[in-house]
């Protein structure tokens, strides 16, 4: 019987694999797979942390380069985790911003539920 934390981490690994298996079929994320993963699953993270005057695509490129520690043009799981740590931190920050409902502020969330 898995714990909540174990299930959540298994879910995250599952998401990783869904994108890593796209062409080529392997256990690595190419830049395109990485980009698709973030755009399709981590919109709040991208919106909240993109630096000013930077496009989302440029930001994703920077994240990819930063994560690719051995510079082989693809991310293995532990390299991907370094980006995921930032996504976790953003999720934690958001949990402290939205107790009941969003107050007026920088967040222009019009209820996009993917």
């Amino acid at each position, binding site marked *: 019987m898995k714990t909540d934390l174990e299930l959540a981490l298994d879910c995250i690994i599952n998401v990783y694999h869904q994108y890593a298996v796209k062409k080529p079929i392997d256990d690595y994320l190419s830049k395109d797979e990485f980009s698709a993963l973030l755009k399709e699953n981590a919109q709040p993270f991208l919106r909240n942390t993109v630096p000013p005057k930077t496009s989302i695509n440029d930001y994703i490129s920077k994240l990819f380069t930063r994560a690719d520690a051995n510079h082989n043009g693809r991310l293995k799981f*532990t390299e991907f*985790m370094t980006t995921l740590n930032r996504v*976790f931190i953003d999720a934690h920050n958001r949990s402290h911003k939205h107790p009941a409902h969003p107050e007026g502020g920088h967040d222009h969330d019009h209820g996009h539920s993917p």
Partner: protein
Amino acid sequence: MSASTQGTTALPETRHFPGHCTLEVALKTVVDVYHRYSTREGKPDLLSFNDFEALLTEQAPTFLQACNRKNPNYLRNLFKETDLNKDREVAFEEFTMVLAKLSDDAHRLIHHQDRCTPDKP
């Protein structure tokens, strides 16, 4: 339910978890679990050693079962290693280091890889 294990590098079958497995739901769960323990003692958004120990013991038993992690000093040492600013509390940002270890372990398990050797480049 168990995947066929033809080789160590075989990709796992896509599993279906109870409920709706999305990244956003998983993130909320992780944050929620963190808060369940951080609120127990001391500052509500920080993990004391007792909070940290309880969290891992109760929420990460699979991780602790392997590689001699049940050694009594293991959690103490892990806490010290995670507490980067040495304030005897682990903040969420510091805790992500532990999440990375837990995820790496779970990923290796799925691929039937060795769990105890350091990460290969």
